[in-house]
């Protein structure tokens, strides 16, 4: 766009007329008239006209005494801007012309199509919530990060090298890559994935284990403590390959946040070198006055008084956190005495993978499967600790927290098996979980008279504010004859204690975070 020198013709005193020429610039006459009207309304401007410099238009301008010598060089493909007004107003008026011409005639059509790609999302989008099939999920996360969004990646089956890449990218960009395989988070009070309705508060949680975080946060909630942030990292974050990138970034964030008064870390046992690094960072926060409770689900006893409080179970992690904040932890759970069951084996049928992990720490020799998916359910002649959220049981169907069908079928078989000594069930509430998760389990329990079936120990992970109503869920289970434990840890300890004594066999090595479990 070529702009000719402005040519100012003196009128009288301070009022002048200026013509400005834009060569080879076409604009529709309606757009020009609208721009002229806006210019004419500016303070100090008495008349304004924008026209294509055809002979007819030039005559009109001349008649209106808006033409200067400048227009002599104008042709019909040139746009002529003519303004009359106070000398000091003219520059502003001319400067406004480009902006006025660049404006669309009317606001963009409101019925914009739904965006398909994250790259099309509103530029103000703060976070991308990704639950696509795993092979695409890291690509979506990378695009989100490149657009300045945090990423919450629920999807699993993401290639390890891609997980590392997105976490490195997030770290460099000052963003969080939560996941892949991240089940839960609460960021700025906003729940993501499977998340309970938690009261806002002063505790920051970081976890590589979704149901573990849910259990600890719900126990804190029951103690009256609230959550400042709950940052999920994905199950592999503390593996040697990933190196705890998201966990360390989350520690950094929570350490720097004055609104966060205590940090709780929850994970299956990390790779040793990663544990060392994470605990060193945690100790730095603790030295500076922000207590840290670390729970690696390895059964280590709580060691109060150290810089970083180490808790071995989910229950102990919650109590330690409450204790560090000066609160009083709940009395220890004393299970009622029960007769020795007739069966021999424990059957734990979990929807939450972390609970299965916690249970295997107590019963390391338990079997972990019931035969091929879809085939007849065959219970082993030994203890069984089943993670029904595992891929083997969720292929082609929703997670057991949403769809109880597979778990109900297993429960029916376990109750009917005379070898079963005790059954353990978790019921996880909150967003993302089914509307009435206890119902299908209670229905199975009611099918068999209580005297003819083994005892069933259940625990509910949820808060009073959860949409499913924790009290109602507990009541439903109790009415169906289930025994209720307050925590996942208490449930498995109680159930294991009910099992008739057996000769302990050699413990098999538990798989650390990032392994095949």
């Amino acid at each position: 766009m070529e702009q000719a020198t402005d040519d100012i013709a003196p009128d009288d005193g301070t009022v002048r007329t200026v013509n400005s020429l834009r060569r080879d610039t076409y604009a529709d006459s309606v757009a020009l008239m609208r721009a002229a009207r806006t210019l004419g309304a500016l303070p100090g401007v008495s008349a304004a006209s924008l026209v294509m410099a055809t002979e007819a238009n030039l005559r009109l301008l001349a008649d209106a005494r808006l033409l200067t010598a400048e227009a002599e060089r104008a042709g019909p493909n040139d746009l002529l801007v003519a303004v009359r007004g106070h000398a000091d107003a003219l520059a502003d008026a001319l400067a406004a012309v480009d902006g006025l011409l660049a404006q669309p005639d009317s606001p963009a059509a409101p019925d914009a199509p739904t965006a398909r790609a994250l790259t099309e999302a509103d530029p103000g989008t703060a976070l991308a919530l990704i639950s696509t099939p795993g092979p695409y999920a890291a690509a979506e996360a990378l695009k989100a990060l490149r657009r300045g969004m945090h990423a919450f990646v629920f999807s699993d089956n993401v290639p390890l090298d891609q997980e590392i890449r997105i976490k490195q990218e997030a770290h460099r960009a000052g963003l969080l890559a939560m996941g892949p395989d991240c089940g839960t988070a609460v960021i700025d009070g906003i729940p993501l994935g499977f998340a309970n309705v938690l009261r806002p508060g002063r505790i920051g949680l970081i976890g590589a284990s979704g149901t573990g975080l849910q259990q600890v946060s719900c126990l804190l909630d029951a103690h009256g403590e609230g959550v400042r942030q709950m940052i999920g990292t994905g199950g592999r974050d503390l593996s040697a390959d990933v190196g705890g990138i998201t966990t360390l970034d989350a520690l950094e964030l929570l350490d720097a946040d004055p609104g966060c008064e205590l940090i709780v870390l929850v994970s299956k046992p990390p790779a040793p070198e990663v544990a060392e690094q994470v605990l060193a960072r945690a100790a730095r926060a603790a030295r500076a006055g922000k207590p840290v409770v670390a729970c690696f689900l390895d059964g280590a006893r709580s060691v109060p008084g150290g810089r970083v409080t180490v808790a071995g179970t989910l229950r102990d992690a919650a109590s330690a956190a409450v204790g560090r904040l000066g609160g009083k932890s709940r009395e220890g759970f004393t299970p009622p005495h029960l007769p020795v069951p007739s069966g021999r084996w424990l059957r734990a049928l979990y929807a939450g993978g972390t609970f299965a992990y916690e249970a295997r720490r107590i019963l390391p020799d338990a079997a972990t499967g019931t035969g091929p998916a879809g085939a007849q359910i065959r219970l082993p002649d030994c203890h069984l600790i089943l993670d029904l959220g595992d891929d083997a049981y969720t292929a082609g169907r929703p997670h057991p927290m949403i769809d109880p069908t597979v778990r109900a079928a297993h429960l029916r078989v376990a109750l009917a098996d005379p070898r079963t000594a005790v059954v353990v069930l978790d019921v996880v509430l909150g967003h993302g979980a089914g509307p009435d998760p206890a119902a299908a389990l209670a229905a199975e329990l009611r099918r068999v008279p209580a005297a003819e079936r083994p005892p069933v120990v259940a625990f509910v992970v949820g808060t009073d504010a959860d949409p499913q109503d924790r009290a109602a869920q507990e009541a439903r289970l109790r009415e169906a004859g289930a025994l209720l434990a307050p925590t996942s840890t208490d449930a498995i300890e109680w159930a294991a204690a009910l099992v008739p004594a057996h000769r302990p066999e050699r413990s098999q090595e538990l798989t650390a975070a990032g392994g095949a479990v």
Partner: protein
Amino acid sequence: MTALPGLSDETAGLLLGGAPVRIAAVGVPEFAEVPRTAGAEVTALDWRPPAAGEPEAAWRLAELTGHPAVEAANREAVARLLAVRPVWTRVLPAREAIAALGDRSRRLLLHAGPPLAWSAMCGPMRAGVIGAALLEGWADSPEAAERLADSGVLEFEPCHHHEAVGPMGGIISPSMPLIEVEDPATGRRAYSNLNEGAGRCLRYGALGADVMERLRWMGTVLAPALSAALGARGEGVDLRAVTAQALQMGDECHSRNTAASTLLLRELAADLCETAHAREVLRFLSDNHYWFLNFSMAAAKLATSAAHGVPHSTLVTAFARNGVEVGIRVGGLGDAWFTAPATQVRGLYFAGYGPEDANPDIGDSAITETYGLGGFSLAAAPAITGFVGGTVEEALRTSRDMARISLARHEAYRLPALGGVGAPVGIDVRAVLDTGIVPVVTTGISHREPGIGQIGAGLTHAPLECFRKALDAMAVPASEIASGTGSP
């Protein structure tokens, strides 16, 4: 990790910024509901697997997304494209305009689309070759022309390889007159042939005495008259101004050129009156609603060529079809063509013809789509929506969708029906693959047999496969972000 975002007290410690928190969700729809319960504004995207559903390609696409080197390259390419001011300056024989055609030791013909051999050519293009051989006096009958081509004496190269574009068959032979379009600021030039009008035309594969007579007349009468008129006018014709006005008058300047042809004729009329054979020239031009098309194409070629050659740019600088294959060129990928089989055109047919008679998509005219015209400006041309049996609303939606795969909007080309926004310009390979939205092309339909000509018009698209192949050829540039130095 950088410090906590949020400088004010209100947002201190917040990771997602102040309310309202915006979240975009892809995947399981139920998950989008969860953050809504806490007041977040969640957009559940209409997601589908990107990059034609291939995970490895999707990852590569992600690596190129928001990449600083790619973004900078595309900014440069778009700036170059938009800076071009196409001015029609000359009419001259092809042998004078294009050096390779001036070599009298060769019998070279240019054709539409990506490269292909005589043996592979479709019916309409073969007819164009025969007509050109007759016109050049290389053969004295269609049979002799075919034998000549079969013997391997004739050479074939794409118009695009010589800064030229030709509609439909796009055959350009040395004696045909070409229009020259120049960017005054850079001196860059591009060429197209002169439009033969509607009905039986060589470009559609029509052959016969009438077709040959008109081609000769165009060389001996029309071209000299246009040349003389341009000379008398004393300056070139700014095609950008004509195009901008035509978009306000119902043209999209690919398949509808009614307004633009009239405007162009108006520019020349006074000076044409003084030329020899003025009456027949004016009558020919006033009967031809399509004669601006070739100007639109040359202008588009000029602008997209200017944008070509920026390393790492993902801007599409050509889309062309030879009737067998279609292909794109990409700004940062050199001279390579990324091809796919030619598509069928969805459209309306003249009486007596149907889809079974249609040749697959053909011609260089889709260069206009890479310049923001044609399907990209369909909103400007409600009169041609009938071609697709479509509605005006669909035309508006097409232009809106094309904006989703474009890097910019044209500052001069405005779409009145969309509130005067600029036409979407500059197809981004990444956006096509990320959204699965393919470029829409408005085009004529040629009969598949040689010698018959145009039988309809309609809409088609650039196949995703072209973009998919282009992605495979793209290297992810090393950058500060990719190589891992420091935090921003």
